[in-house]
């Protein structure tokens, strides 16, 4: 598809917002987790699924800052002006937890420019100890993957235990890596009490439908 066609398609998608507007009330969702778990794939999937329903913007914090933004642009999921890349100086966890000022700056700029319904803040790839400050976001999704081994949920950490939604991605790889999905689900549910866990394969479900529904419910709740 020609780039101009793609851009007009994206703009048309943004012009169509069936939900009532709620100026200045963007829901901010942090997406964190270890390297390679599927954070960027999830952001791309949410953008594709939700862009027809609501106005979106994305802040990326990847270690090679422009890579994630380029990924989103290449896949045509969001126009450039709705994406900001924040550089974190080798400390992705600092930028989302201890010193959130650069990310706040990026979020505020996107809110001022676009007044979006939803801002996704994607952390750089980190480890199981990463967690977002609630000074930066309203809710956080922690993404781990099956290929990292079925003991990952048991290891815990603030992301696995206290995130508002735990996503266990790449369920399609379970037979290949000898991971037991029931063990992962049981361990996660035991550690997380009543907080939700979703096992998905973003490769097989590129619309990320259950996660998109969870996000949409948050945006609806903000507006009611």
């Amino acid at each position, binding site marked *: 598809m020609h780039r101009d066609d793609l851009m007009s398609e994206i703009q048309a998608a943004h012009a169509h917002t069936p939900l009532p507007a709620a100026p200045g009330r963007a829901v901010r969702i942090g997406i964190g987790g270890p390297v390679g778990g599927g954070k960027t794939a999830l952001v791309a999937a949410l953008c594709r699924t939700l862009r027809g329903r609501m106005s979106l913007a994305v802040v990326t914090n990847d270690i090679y800052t422009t890579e994630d933004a380029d990924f989103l642009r290449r896949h045509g999921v969001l126009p450039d002006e709705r994406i900001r890349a924040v550089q974190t100086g080798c400390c992705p966890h600092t930028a989302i937890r201890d010193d959130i000022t650069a990310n706040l*700056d990026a979020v505020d700029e996107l809110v001022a420019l676009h007044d979006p319904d939803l801002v996704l803040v994607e952390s750089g790839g980190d480890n199981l100890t990463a967690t977002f400050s609630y000074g930066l976001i309203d809710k956080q999704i922690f993404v781990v993957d099956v290929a990292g081994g079925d003991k990952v949920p048991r290891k815990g950490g603030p992301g696995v235990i206290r995130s508002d939604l735990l996503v266990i991605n790449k369920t399609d790889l379970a037979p290949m890596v000898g991971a037991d999905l029931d063990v992962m689900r049981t361990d996660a549910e035991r550690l997380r009490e009543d907080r939700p866990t979703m096992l998905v394969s973003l490769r097989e479900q590129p619309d990320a439908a259950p996660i998109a529904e969870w996000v949409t419910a948050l945006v609806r709740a903000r507006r009611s």
Partner: protein
Amino acid sequence: MLPLFLLADSRLPSGGHGHSGGVEALVDRRLVRSVDDLALFLAGRVRTGGRVVAAAAAAACTLASGTPDWAPWDAAVSARIPSAALRTASRAQGAALLRTVALAFPTPAVAALRALPRVHHPLVLGAAAAAAGADPGQAAALALHHLVGGAATAAVRLLGLDPLRVTAVTVGVARAADPVAADAAALATAAVAAGDPVLLPTEGSPLTDVLAELHRASEATLFAS
């Protein structure tokens, strides 16, 4: 004294961890490879860009006893930073620090900083330092402390330098920076007394400016500057 220590702490949320003070561009070009290289670079920065930001912070500290018109002082800092990339970095760090300072030290002078869209970092630092009880010499020293500390930390992260040796050479740099701070504060006090920001010092280091521009145009960077 303790509130002032908070402003010197690298844990203060101020966006500094995302900036290397020019070190990443030097490391990428193998111009800084060792602790000794870092020490040489820091000594040069203290006497040039460091002297400028120290004077700006000291001037802001003096001005902050009232409710100043910050615009001409902000313009004076811009005029002393030839690289657009470094001006952007200075304003980004000023905006980041102001988020924290506006909550922690809500004085009239700090509130007046918010009348401008994005104020340069040393002016925010100086105004906060005044609110924390600093004199202009201490505000100047604080600006140099952050310039040295930010660059040294970035070098440790990028090159895997021995942090104990880096700390040791940083102490040497800091001792040499003390008289620079005192001198910058004297110049700043005179500039404020004359009501003329043109009197602030104007040293620079062209390589830092050129590399900052190249850094901004580079694809894969870990630090914003």
